[in-house]
């Protein structure tokens, strides 16, 4: 089913889509944030998509702990280092 885009609080749905990253990264001003919030409050579609967008980024950021270097890889690296003097 197609969504009917709308303009609310001076913003179109596409305006909100364009600025979602800035919103979740905390890079919009208080006034801009309020304007986006007013749009989202009246637009179920942007509300739902915005939540999903934020949830996806949350899941991505939860990946933060990289697995350690496998022991044998670390050993091969340190073996290559042995005997090499740093250049100052």
């Amino acid at each position, binding site marked *: 089913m*197609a969504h009917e885009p709308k303009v609310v609080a001076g913003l179109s749905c596409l305006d909100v889509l364009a600025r979602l990253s800035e919103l979740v990264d905390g890079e919009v001003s208080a006034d801009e944030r309020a304007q986006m919030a007013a749009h989202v409050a009246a637009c179920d579609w942007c509300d739902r998509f915005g939540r999903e967008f934020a949830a996806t980024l949350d899941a991505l950021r939860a990946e933060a702990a990289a697995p*350690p270097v496998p022991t044998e890889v670390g050993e091969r690296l340190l073996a290559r280092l042995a005997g090499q003097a*740093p250049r100052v």
Partner: protein
Amino acid sequence: MTPATADADLLAAAAVGDEEAFAHLVERHGGAVLRYAESLVGSGVGAAEDVLQETFLAAWSAAARFRGEAGARGWLLAITRQKAMRHFRRRAGEPDHLTSLAELGEAAGWAVEEDPADRALRRLDLQAALAALAVEDREILLLRDVEGLSGEEVAALLGLGLAAMKSRLHRARLRLMAAMTPRLKGGTHGA
């Protein structure tokens, strides 16, 4: 030398030949370096390990020149990128900037009304979705959202202006969502 010793102190010690200090750095940041290398060159045939080794060997040699402005992890990831470029020939031109934002949004499920439960059932594993992305998208997501580098650090590392980095990041995030909702790609609206 303890696990809590600051990166800058470890690098200062490595600069005068302290291999134990450097081993701590490998232990602390090697996983991130390897993951980033794999995102650029793939995980097969030892290429990522080659990049890891070249990165840390270069860092060992250059430890005295570390100034700490970007943090040790950002510094190491910048070296990783330099080394990976030898193994990975980037595609010509920029990523898919010709695709409109609306089209990207629609591919990501922005324009399609659907039962959220249905969508949840269809979401691909995040790792599988990341693996399906173009390397430029995977790289910027990994640096900014997974490794948590600042926008300024990512822009500098990629050789982009801050505004261009933000635009590329936003599109990469939408493409990640699109990769996680593959069957929604046919939906459109009349905007």
